[in-house]
């Protein structure tokens, strides 16, 4: 009985549960047998080379991509059993910060941040305006940009507006897709600080997809490294590392150490071999 209760408590603590997830597009498998359990309040960085399925994993968690097999459970709810009618409500638990911010071009900054509030709450325009200002202040943006269109903002500002919009409805889980890509080192660090601050102020669970090692080591409690399937053997696990950021450097797998140190290693010769094989196949 006591053991049952402990198991129940353990299950409740796990907010995101990915169980043997496989995602395939046509003939191409992007994710294979991924299993991941993320407790409430944890910040997980998912790292890996381009094309290893990090973004696909993120989009599967919010139901933008359907799994080919396996299960994803959010707060114990199996996503495969969620009806079209239930999805919008379920998605309100999430905030998604897109790689290019994905702000609505036709709306100004204030309207962008207010969008989820107008869609899902019955707040008055004044309350919405106050909340928008508060969210923008949290990410360090002044009142003066309220009426600017996204095209008039810099990359860093767009990212911060995207974060303010993701925070508008006080989500439980925030998904960050490459939050520092394309930003200068200082703005990248500002974003890292904002991720940390958001976690403290809102007690959210965060999943940060990145290939920026500074972000991974600075903001995450736990790092998960995935590897492109095309370069894995049939029996190898796609997750090469799952542990604290401090131990990344001492990982058993040399591919993890190579990624962390940013060393090309044998990649160039591998790429040349791939090109050579392609050329010989096409000439035959």
């Amino acid at each position, binding site marked *: 009985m006591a053991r049952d209760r402990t198991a129940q408590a353990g299950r409740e603590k796990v907010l995101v549960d990915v169980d043997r997830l496989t995602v395939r597009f046509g003939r191409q498998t992007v994710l294979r047998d991924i299993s991941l359990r993320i407790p409430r309040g944890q910040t997980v960085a998912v790292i890996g080379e381009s094309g290893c399925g990090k973004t696909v994993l993120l989009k599967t968690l*919010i139901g933008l991509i359907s799994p080919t097999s396996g299960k994803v459970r959010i707060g114990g709810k199996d996503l495969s059993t969620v009806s079209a009618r239930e999805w*919008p409500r379920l*998605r*309100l638990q999430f905030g998604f910060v*897109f790689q290019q911010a*994905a702000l*609505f071009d036709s709306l100004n900054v204030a309207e962008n941040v207010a969008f989820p509030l107008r869609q*899902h709450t019955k707040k008055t325009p004044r309350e919405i305006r106050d909340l928008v200002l508060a969210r923008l202040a949290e990410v360090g943006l002044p009142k003066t940009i309220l009426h600017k269109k996204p095209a008039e903002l810099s990359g860093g500002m767009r990212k911060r507006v995207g974060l303010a919009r993701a925070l508008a409805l006080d989500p439980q889980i925030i998904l960050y897709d490459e939050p520092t890509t394309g930003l200068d080192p200082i703005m990248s660090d500002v974003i890292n600080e904002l991720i940390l601050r958001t976690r403290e102020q809102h007690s959210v669970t965060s999943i940060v997809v990145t290939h920026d090692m500074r972000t991974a080591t600075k903001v995450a409690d736990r790092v998960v490294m995935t590897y492109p399937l095309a370069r894995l053997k049939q029996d190898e696990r796609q997750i090469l590392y799952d542990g604290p950021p401090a131990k990344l450097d001492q990982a058993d797998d040399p591919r993890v150490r190579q990624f962390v140190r940013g060393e090309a290693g044998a990649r160039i010769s591998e790429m040349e071999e791939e090109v050579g094989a392609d050329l010989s196949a096409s000439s*035959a």
Partner: protein
Amino acid sequence: MATSVSPTHPRPNAPRGFLRGFTDWVADLGELVMDRVAGMGDVTLFSWRTMTWLFTRLPRRETLLPNFYQIGVLSLPVVALTGTFIGMVLAVQSYAQFRMLNLETRLGAVINMTLVRELGPVLAATMLAGRVGSAMAAELGTMRVTEQIDALTCMGANPIHYLAVPRFLACLILIPTLTIMADFMGVVGGYAYSIYALNIDAHHYWENSEKFVGSFDLFTGIFKSLFFGAAIALISCHRGFNCRPGAEGVGQAATTAFVYSFVMILVLDLFLGIMLDSIYYALWPDGARLI
């Protein structure tokens, strides 16, 4: 001499030569047919979802009004201009033939009948497909490519309800207005050219027009335009939603939106024309006679 099998050949026993070519051709054809069938199924499903949302929950005023302005108000000048010119061109082209038969005074009947039943609605729809359909496909395509449509979904909003339904409603409601504008300006253009350039008697011109062009003809044109508007909106939104990545994908979405809409306008025009003609002759078996 022993035949050696190339090591790169995947199937040593595969048929070669003509037979191989034929099987490849059949496979390609099959793939093409499957693609087309899947594409049509996809458009049908998209249209069904749009209709479902239309009857479930109407879009908000702030999403409707910009579309009404973009699709209706901004299209009026170009539709009016092309309508005027088409009316005048009809007068120019028909005059010589009618003069040979001494039937110049019947020009009004022909010009106005052609405009109200055919050219007005088709012209307004073509202008709408070119001006608005391509723009809608490009705008929604860009939103797809830059993940704005994904962002909408993530924020618990339905992209079809938020993006497609207002555009569909605006096209459906405003295309009759544009058609009436094209008809009116075409009638004015045809009249002006016939009376002032070709010196046809105005009284007879209008008398014949009135005799042959009835309210059913006007209804025919407006009724057809509703289908054209719906087709333009659905095709263009569908192309935008299913845009391929990159600038090339957006460009392709805009082009195919216009081409498919235009083809659909002509196909619908034929079938609706046949159907409405059957109704007309069932109601008025004698019909109207020019001579």
